[in-house]
């Protein structure tokens, strides 16, 4: 599992071990200040990062 969140301290506290930083608590996978197309691109990138995290393994 990968968690996308803007509340990083909470994710750390509960021991979530794959975390991707979101774009704000009110729109974790978006950004209302961007144009529709820019926001779509931002979301694509975010999801790509999440997929990358899912394929990452623990490092010493």
């Amino acid at each position, binding site marked *: 599992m990968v968690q996308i969140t803007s509340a990083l301290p909470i994710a750390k506290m509960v*021991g979530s071990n794959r975390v991707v930083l979101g774009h704000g608590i009110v729109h974790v*996978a978006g950004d209302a200040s961007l144009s529709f197309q820019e926001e779509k691109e931002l979301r694509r990138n975010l*999801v790509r990062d999440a997929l990358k995290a899912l394929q990452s393994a623990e490092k010493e």
Partner: protein
Amino acid sequence: MRVVHYLNQFFGGVGGEERAGMRLEEREGAAGPGRLLEQLLGGNAKIVKTLVCGDNYAVEHQDEVIASVLKKVQEAKAELFIAGPCFEAGRYGMISGALCSAVQSELAIPVVTAMAGENPGADLYREALYIIDSGPSSAKMRDVLVKMAELAKKLVAREEIGLPGEEGYLRRGLIRDEFVEQTAAKRLVDMIMAKVTGGPFESEMVPTSFEPIPMPPAVKDLSKARVMLITDGGLVPKGNPDRIEGSAATRWGAYSIEGLDDLKGDDYEISHGGYDPRFVQEDPDRLVPLDAMREMEREGKIGKLHNEFLSTSGLANPLSNTRRIGREMAEKVKKEGIDAVILTST
């Protein structure tokens, strides 16, 4: 006072691990540690029934065992329910916690159990219950029973319950008002001085500790993986069909996204009292990124997006609740054969 006592197969005198599969049985009167417990409760206390169940059976058929225990406790017209003590026995602790929690909420009578702080049942139920700290060793049986009996008597008499250290129960993580002699500033400075000089001090606010969770291995081939979206941001279909509470949620839902390429604000609402929901209401993909995931699916980056997303509301929720919701969701994830989950949290 009518008491019902729950024991596992070992303390119930049936047998060891080889009998852990036994079903729930009932005995008239006290059995095993219940005999001493009855004496310690004193007065007119009587263990009218002892319920005994194998640890494996209880954990593997938890819902069934809870339902029959509730029925038997009710039939016995019990005024007090006691489970254990369980010491470090994990399965025994889990079922004792679950039973006490069910009896407390369904039948509204006092409940007491006891286990070691390291027992997984303690972690799950310490917030909801008074759990006497039994320590790991059953050699302390008598001391533990004394504390259980004292606490039980107070609960039945509706007397004020002292602090964890005074009564011997595990910290529940509750905060309560209290009159004290000194201001917070004075108390803090005293604590710091004690700390730097190596003296004794006790924190007034002990943070909840979380057991580290081992990191699951990497997904080997995402292009063949079934991926599920989960959110704790409270996104629900219009009308909130499962009535998921916007705060301290006790429920979660699974909502179909079959055939959808993105989520429309008109079809959804947000049941979450902890953030400004306007942006997600405008475009729910900002919380549950369905549009981007569909693209990944079409491009073959992932095998398949599961045709439902799961949702609950993560706000001001006791851990006992959220852990149950997490377990239930994990069961669903397993059942659906999901390889990877993306959880979006507000």
